[in-house]
Each structure stands twice: as C-alpha cells, then as structure tokens.
C-alpha cells in the first residue's frame, strides 16, 4: 500500500443519518457496499462537497477539504470546484448540449491551457477510453457504455487526486460491464490515486476492490479486504449483508459453542473478547464442512433436501437438527457422485470447529449486544 491519501469521517443525523469513517490509500480501490438507501451515495457526495454533514473530517493528501465539529461548527468546507476529485455519476450526467470532446474539455476550462491544448488533452483521454472516433457525437447519439466512457474521461480530465465512482456499472449490460471492468483495472494501475467505488453488487466489489466498507442504514459496519469480510464478518448483520448463507446462532462459553436449537457443541477458538454465556452468531465457510456416507463420532445427521448443479459445481441444501436448520454445501459434481448424493438421502455432516467464526449478534456499538 502507498501512503495514506484520503481520510474520511462523517457524522450526521439529518436528512439521513450517516456514521462512517474509513481511509483509502493511493492506488487502492475501496468499495462502499450496502443495500439501497444505506447512504453510500451520500458518503460519496459528501467527499465531493455536494453534501455537508453536521460534523466530520475529510482530508485528501494533507489538504483538509472539510472539517466541522459540535463545538466550533464548520471550520473548513471547500466548494466542490476546489476539491480535486473526479466524480462519475450513476446516470453519467453528461452535458447534453455539448459533444463528447466538449464534455471532456469542460473540466479543463480553468487549467490555464489554450483551447487547442485543451482539445488535445481531451482527445487523448477519449482515445485512452477507446472512443476517440466518437468525439464529435452528442451524448444522445452514444450508447450507455460509450456515455460512461465519456463521463470517465471527463472525471479524469482535471488529473484528480481521488476518483469517486457512484454505481458506475448498474445501468450497463453485462458484456459492456466486463470491458469497463478491464478499463477500470488498467486505469487503476496507471493513476495510482485512491478510487472509491459505490456499489450494491457484492460480487462486483469482491472482483474489483482491495478493501470493502460495508454500510447499512448509514452506519459503516466493517472495513476489510474481501476475503476477510467473507470469512470473518464482524457481526451477524455484516454476515447477512455479504450473503453468507451458513449463518446460525449459539451460546458461547469459554471456547465451547452450543448450536442454538440443538445439543451440538463445537470447540472453537476463544480470543477472550466475549463474556461467558453470551448469545452469538456464527458462520462456517465452505472449507469447514465435509460430508460423509457413514457416521463418525462427531458427525451430524443431515438430510439432502435439494441438489442444484451448475456446471462442475453442485450446491447441496441439507436439513439438520430435525429440519430445524438448513446448511448449504458446495462440492464438485464428482464428489456428489462419489457420495451417491440424491434428494431425500441421509448423510453425515462434519463441521470443523476451528473454521467456525463467532461474532456478536449486534453491531459492536450497540449497547444491547451482550444481552441474551
């Protein structure tokens, strides 16, 4: 990682509550992920200066863009034009009366360059986006993907210190999206600036981002690299938001986890952070599960409910604890054949306690988190 470039702390109660803080380093692609209405776009707009929170601190490359606290009110609030950031809007927001080239020239208005040099710079950017031949087209004569590329060229025209992308791929068809992913990956290497990507698509964030901040109802729940987020979600809500299907509840006491609704007890790692007899949520990754055709000492009886085969991968839905819980297990088609799995067949599931990740039921800042 490079040195710290963007530091964001935002706190507001209205119009929609936001409570978030994160950092983004140069060269890092940081994704803000959350459901619709979770406040992701508000965070992005706040960084760009299009929204002013009640309190907060936004610093980019040693320059304070915004600072406000309860004691002194707003101390610094640079106008959007003074913040060196490229902003890609969800609906592109191209200037409809200007050609693609003129759109990209607009941010160069105050660059001190001559008109001819501005045109050359804008043309180079359009070429880099692979749409140099469309420079004279009006926005309405361009496809969604082409408009997106013009908007990206415009966002980069001022050589911004950070790039903010608001759901950039949501309105684009799948093949175009793939090629834009590649453009973004290439750009990222060349630019070496912090890039913030807002998306509701977790798969997209997993594919593109170095780190993800999960945001829900305006609150930043966890910031972590994708693999950490999927394996070690901070709490039950994060696990739910990142789509972990094998998510259960239990009672945790000094290294022992009792599966709620059954008598199964697992020996799990105890970091000493959770008091005894605490209700917890727990998740187990796919590699912590194995299925056997014969029972052993620590296996759980499981009934195959459904097998969905997707190419060489099969997703098996299992019912355990007298149908009280459902577990999803992924295996190769060959493994399914070896075990002779089919709907309604009895099987034996082994859960590796060392792979189990336990977490509070409620967010870390929620006073109710330790009450059972």
């Amino acid at each position, binding site marked *: 990682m490079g040195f710290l470039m963007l530091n964001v702390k935002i706190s507001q109660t209205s119009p929609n509550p936001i409570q978030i803080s994160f950092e983004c380093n140069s060269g890092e692609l940081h994704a803000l992920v959350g459901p619709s209405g979770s406040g992701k776009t508000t965070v992005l707009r706040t960084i760009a200066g299009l929204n002013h929170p009640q309190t907060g601190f936004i610093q980019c490359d040693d320059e304070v863009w915004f600072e406000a606290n309860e004691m002194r009110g707003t101390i610094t609030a640079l106008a959007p034009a003074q913040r060196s950031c*490229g*902003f890609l809007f969800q609906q592109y927001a191209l200037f409809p009366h200007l050609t693609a080239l003129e759109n990209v020239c*607009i941010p160069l208005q105050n660059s001190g360059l001559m008109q001819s040099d501005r045109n050359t710079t804008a043309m180079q950017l359009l070429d880099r986006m692979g749409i140099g031949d469309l420079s004279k087209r009006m926005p309405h004569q361009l496809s969604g993907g082409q408009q997106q590329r013009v908007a990206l060229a415009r966002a980069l025209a001022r050589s911004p210190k950070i790039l903010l992308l608001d759901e950039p791929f949501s309105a684009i068809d799948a093949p175009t999206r793939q090629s834009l992913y590649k453009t973004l990956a290439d750009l990222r290497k060349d630019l070496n600036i912090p890039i913030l990507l807002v998306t509701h698509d977790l798969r997209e964030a997993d594919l593109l981002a170095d780190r993800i901040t999960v945001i829900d109802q305006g609150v930043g729940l966890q910031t972590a690299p994708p693999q950490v987020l999927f394996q070690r979600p901070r709490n039950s809500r994060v696990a739910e938001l990142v789509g972990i299907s094998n998510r259960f509840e239990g009672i945790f006491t000094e290294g022992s986890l009792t599966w709620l609704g059954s008598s199964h007890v697992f020996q799990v790692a105890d970091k000493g952070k959770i008091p005894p007899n605490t209700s917890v949520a727990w998740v187990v990754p796919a590699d912590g599960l194995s299925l056997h055709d014969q029972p052993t000492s620590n296996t759980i009886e499981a009934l195959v409910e459904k097998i969905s085969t997707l190419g060489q991968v099969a997703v098996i839905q299992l019912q355990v604890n007298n149908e009280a819980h459902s577990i999803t297990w992924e295996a190769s088609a060959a493994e399914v054949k070896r075990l002779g799995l089919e709907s309604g067949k009895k099987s034996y599931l082994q859960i590796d306690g060392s792979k189990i990740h336990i977490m509070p039921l409620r967010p870390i800042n929620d006073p109710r988190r330790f009450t059972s």
Partner: protein
Amino acid sequence: MDIEALLLSLKLAIWTLVLILPFGVWVAHSLQNMGKYRSWIEAALALPLVLPPTVLGYYLLVGFGGKSFLGIPLVFSFAGILIASLIVNLPFAIQPIQRAFESINPEIREAAQVSGLSNWQIFRLIELPLAWRGITSAAVLTFAHTLGEFGVILMVGGAIPGETKTVSIAIYDKVQSFDTSGAGALSLLLLAISLVAIALSYGIFGRQPSLQKRWDS
C-alpha cells in the same frame, strides 16, 4: 395603413424585449435558490396574468402621478407605456425561462461543480445554453404580447400619435371612427406578425432533441 402606430408598437416591443430579457433570466435563475419567500415572489410576478389591464393601468396612472423618468413625464409618454409594458410582460418573460432552468437535471449542475467550474461559468457554459429554448420562447411571447397590448397602454398612455398610440390602440380608434377597412388591415398585419413570430419560435427553437434524433436517423 397607420405606419406610425406600427413603428411605435415595434419600438415598444423591441425596447421591452431588450430590457426585460436579461432581467427575466436573472429573476428566473435567482428563483431556483430562493427559500421560503419563493412562492410569494412567484405569485407577485404572475399577478399581471390575472389582474384586469384596467386595474393595473389605474394603479400605474395613480402611481406615476406627476413623476418623471429621467426628466420625461411618465403619464401619457413613451417611457410610461414602456414601464407599463415591462410590468405587464413579467410573467410572459419569466415563467418560460424559469421552467427551462427547472428542467435542467440537478446532476448536470453538480457535474459542472465537480468539474471545477465557477458559478458564473456554470451559468454561462451550462445553464444558459440548456435554457436557450425557454429564453427564445419568453422572447417571442413578450414580443407578440407587447404588440397586442391594449388596456394598460390606453390607461397609462392614452392615444397620442407617435408617442403612445400603438397598433392595437390605432385599431380601436379606427373602429370607433367607422374605418373598418383600416382596422381590418392593421388587425391582419398584427395577426400575421404574431403568427410568424410564434411559428419561428416553434419551428427553429421548439424541436425536442429526441425528435431531432429521430428525424436525423
């Protein structure tokens, strides 16, 4: 044909246009960011639409009294009917421009802001060109409306040839003196000018970009 009255009407319409358009653009643009007083200001600016011209004329007559404008008396003078015309035309000049500014997607303005443009640059390079159709529409409406204005002009200016006797007042005078052919000719001329002005506005400036695209392809 009363050429003097026609020229006076054209002079009044052009002066009204020259003075009211910049003011209309400024007011329409300012109204966007006006807070709680906005609806009151909008109501006041729309008043000439619903107020009978004689009522407005009466207040202007009383208001002008013996006052003068740059040494020119206001009552029964060109300066007086010009001020009356400016007031009467406020809604025709402001409303189309205001609608045009309002129809600009707020994200377009924000995109201009984050592109580093100053407020003046945003206005000049983005908002004004995008509101252009509204501005031409306001110009045509104001022009055509001024040519046909009657009640307020009569109240404030009377019918002094070469000073306040516009085409519509000349038509009224000719009807009063049973010169129906003269009144008919002037009416036809006024009708033709108004029709051409509106047709020009619709034909040249009124095309939607989406329609344009369909025609081009």
